[in-house]
């Protein structure tokens, strides 16, 4: 009925920059709106604001303004660094002070690293028409595998040991993705259900590993692994407190690799065609079964690398509270990044910075939960672009709309 409306004869083609601007507009407004509504939460949870309004209306408003500025100021400084402090540190010439001053922005990159891997995992799944909710579980298995190779094998040179432990992470995660992929391809079992179940298996399995076979001698039954060998460590570049490590750049390289795979190779064409229209894929002679398995395995492997990097570069041993939900946040990252690797990288940087800035906000008695709320709000707005479009009265660009992935995944796949 709307056919004629939807197929205007002449569609204007936006230039590259305008196109980019259009793609970025909704996520940017989503972030902005999230911050605005987050401010409301900050205000209503602030003692000072109540105290201010107790005095007078004017004092109340002043307190509101003051609270917001202080909170977001702290978040900004925590995420990117305090410019004044950086300048002073450089003037002072004290190396430790300089490192401390510039640490926040580098720490944001450290925070972003597992997000990038995990976000790529979900994005690759989306592009292939699969909804991998199992990233968290795959991350745990990958981390466990990397940890095991990291501490159990001794006497290897670092050039072999570190890549081997890293690779073990990919294998562990890949195995955890392969199982639901195989189930989907061969039996039609829905990957959403199966990856959720695989998550639970993974959590309990790692718990058992960390208290049993992989426990640290003398930990007294605490679920923690031995420290990995020096030779397995992914190197950090600077002395304390800066933790920026090679893993961040490996993550960027993987983002490029995934981009190359999806958009520049015939393998990627296979995956994307299966994801976008399995019927047409079959017609084109693409093997749907094997591509579903490949997609889930690769997705799981990327998730496993998120865990492996965190262990080998930052934690250096495995404990239960490894990821703080990065595997679930990654679904949002893929959405925010429109399932493109470059988008995932930017979304991860944003989330890394937000998480990092949250630490500083806590010093102002603002609960860490507020940052989670802001993140949740941003996500909700990103995931439902219609809300943002309605608020800001943006007209829907047809093509941009179609660029948003999601194949027939929820509809029951095959």
């Amino acid at each position, binding site marked *: 009925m709307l056919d004629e409306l939807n197929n*205007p004869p002449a569609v204007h083609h936006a230039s590259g920059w305008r196109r980019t601007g259009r793609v970025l507009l909704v996520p940017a407004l989503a972030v902005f709106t999230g911050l605005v509504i987050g401010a409301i939460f900050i205000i209503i949870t602030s003692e000072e604001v109540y105290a201010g309004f107790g005095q007078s209306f004017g004092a109340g408003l002043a307190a509101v303004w003051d609270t917001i500025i202080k909170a977001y100021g702290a978040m900004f400084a925590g995420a990117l660094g305090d410019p004044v402090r950086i300048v002073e540190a450089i003037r002072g010439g004290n190396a430790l002070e300089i490192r401390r001053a510039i640490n926040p922005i580098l720490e944001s990159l450290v925070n972003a690293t597992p997000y990038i891997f995990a976000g790529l995992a979900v994005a690759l799944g989306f592009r292939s028409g699969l909804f991998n909710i199992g990233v968290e579980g795959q991350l745990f298995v990958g981390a466990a595998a990397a940890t095991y190779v990291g501490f159990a094998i001794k006497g290897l040179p670092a050039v072999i040991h570190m890549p081997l432990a890293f690779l073990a992470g990919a294998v562990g995660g890949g195995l955890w993705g392969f199982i639901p992929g195989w189930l989907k391809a061969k039996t039609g079992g829905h990957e959403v259900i199966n990856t959720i179940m695989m998550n639970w298996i993974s959590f309990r399995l790692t718990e058992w590993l960390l208290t049993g076979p992989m426990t640290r001698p003398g930990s007294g039954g605490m679920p923690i692994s031995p420290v990995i060998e020096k030779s397995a460590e992914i190197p950090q570049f600077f002395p304390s407190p800066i933790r920026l490590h090679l893993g961040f750049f490996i993550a960027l390289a993987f983002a490029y690799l995934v981009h190359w795979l999806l958009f520049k190779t015939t393998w990627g064409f296979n995956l994307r065609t299966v994801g976008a229209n399995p019927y047409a894929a079959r017609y084109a*002679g693409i093997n749907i079964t094997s591509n579903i398995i490949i997609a889930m395995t690769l997705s799981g492997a990327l998730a496993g690398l998120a865990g492996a990097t965190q262990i080998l570069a930052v934690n250096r041993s495995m404990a239960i509270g490894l990821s703080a939900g990065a595997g679930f946040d990654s679904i949002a990252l893929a959405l925010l990044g429109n399932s493109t690797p470059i988008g995932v990288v930017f979304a991860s940087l944003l989330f890394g910075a937000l998480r990092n800035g949250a630490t500083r906000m806590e010093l102002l008695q603002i609960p860490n939960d507020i940052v989670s709320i802001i993140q949740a709000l941003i996500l909700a707005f990103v995931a439902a672009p219609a809300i943002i479009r309605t608020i800001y009265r943006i007209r829907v660009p047809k093509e941009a709309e179609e660029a948003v992935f999601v194949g027939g995944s929820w509809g029951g796949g095959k």
Partner: protein
Amino acid sequence: MAPVLELKGITKRFPGVLANDHINLTLNEGEILALLGENGAGKSTLMNILYGLYQPDEGEIYVRGKKTTIVSPTDAIRSGIGMVHQHFMLIPVFTVTENVMLGAEELRAAGFLDRKKAADRIRDISQRYKLEVDPDAYVRDLPVGVQQRVEIIKLLYRQAEILIFDEPTAVLTPQEADELFAIMRELIRQGKSIIFITHKLREVLEVADHILVIRRGAVVGETVPQGADKNSLAAMMVGRPVRLEVEKRVAHVQNKVLEVRDLVVADAQKQITVDEVSFDVHAGEILGVAGVQGNGQTELVEAVTGLRMPNSGTIRLLGQDITRATPRQVTELGSAHIPEDRQRDGLVLSFPVADNTVLCTYYKPPYAKGVTMQWKKVYEDAEKLIQDFDIRTPSAKTNVGALSGGNQQKVIVAREFSRPIKLLVASQPTRGLDVGSIEYIHKRIVEKRDEGCAVLLVSPELDEIMELSDRIAVMYRGKIVTIVPADQATKAYIGLLMAGVSPEQAGAPQVGERVVESTL
């Protein structure tokens, strides 16, 4: 007396498009007004304005001489205007009665539904207008033609005086279409008035009292069937003279390309739908498979193209056994396939035009070097195809989903014809397309045959089969009833076979009796 409906100067603009340009329309009581135009001409926009789904930017609507504003379908129904949509608005798991009363429920005391009273009213309507239907049947169990009757009853139940039919025959078999025309005539005999939207010339000439031709949003002609013929209507509609009959030289039949023997195929529900079918297709000929939809043609085509595994029998392509081959193996041997459902099987709507033009060849040179895609080459060739096949698209980067149906089909034809092929399997290649596109695609198919390609054409449109085929195979309930040379077949004879009459009973066709009818 004032006309039942009058539109004056209706204008509707969409960003960048003038969908309706000062359209005037008059519908008199008890007549069928045909609104004829190609896809995208602005017919549906006009009807959606009349039905209250859009508001016109300019212009006025008069119902029985009274100026009326219609801002919603509820308003339209209140003014006695009802619409039978191309895609039915029925709930499959409800009965006919429940569907009809939905939104206009008969109530008993305390708000309980009175199904019986509603069913009785439906029976009355059904008898009065000769719309045979069982009020207690579930809609999901009804054939498409009967579902359409339910839609019509829905309107009559709401006392609609003006009935709009939007491309009503698109989903019907020829027999069902004939039944629909009889119903339409009965409706106007009893004082209803009808607007009939279509792009099929034959139907217009058959049932309309008045014809209004629309092109690019404006009325370009007004006529009556007595003063018009297919050629003049087509020319008005497209804006240039159109060749309705396909120009075709005598077939120059060569070697056997496709050989099908004792083929048995089951559908997804494991029902045998192709039952011991045997036939050959030779280079340089078109074998047309006629038959009402659902008689096994879909599964036959799927088996031949490798999309469905046959239960038994053999299929040979150029001497090679392809009975158990994969779709890619079949393609590699030089087979091309225009699928029945282009949007489901033939295209990835969310991919650009260029990507779709390499859907069957993307994995090998020159489009891939090793595993790396050679996108530059893909786009270069796509630009050429867009030129050669006259695909109307803003660019090769535009998603195929944004193109019109005709242009989507051209993308498929361009892709399949752009590589060397020995066999073309074309399944309903012009389904839902307008005159211009049909003319074009027919021409291209005949060209392929003349180049020495073997063509297997499957279509429920008897006219299309008659027009293009060199030999005609009739399929009925999974079997090929007979295969006759096209010049010995008459439409009546093939029609009888399609309906299940045995060749003996149908009587041998008489040479010279054949009249070529256009598809349009």
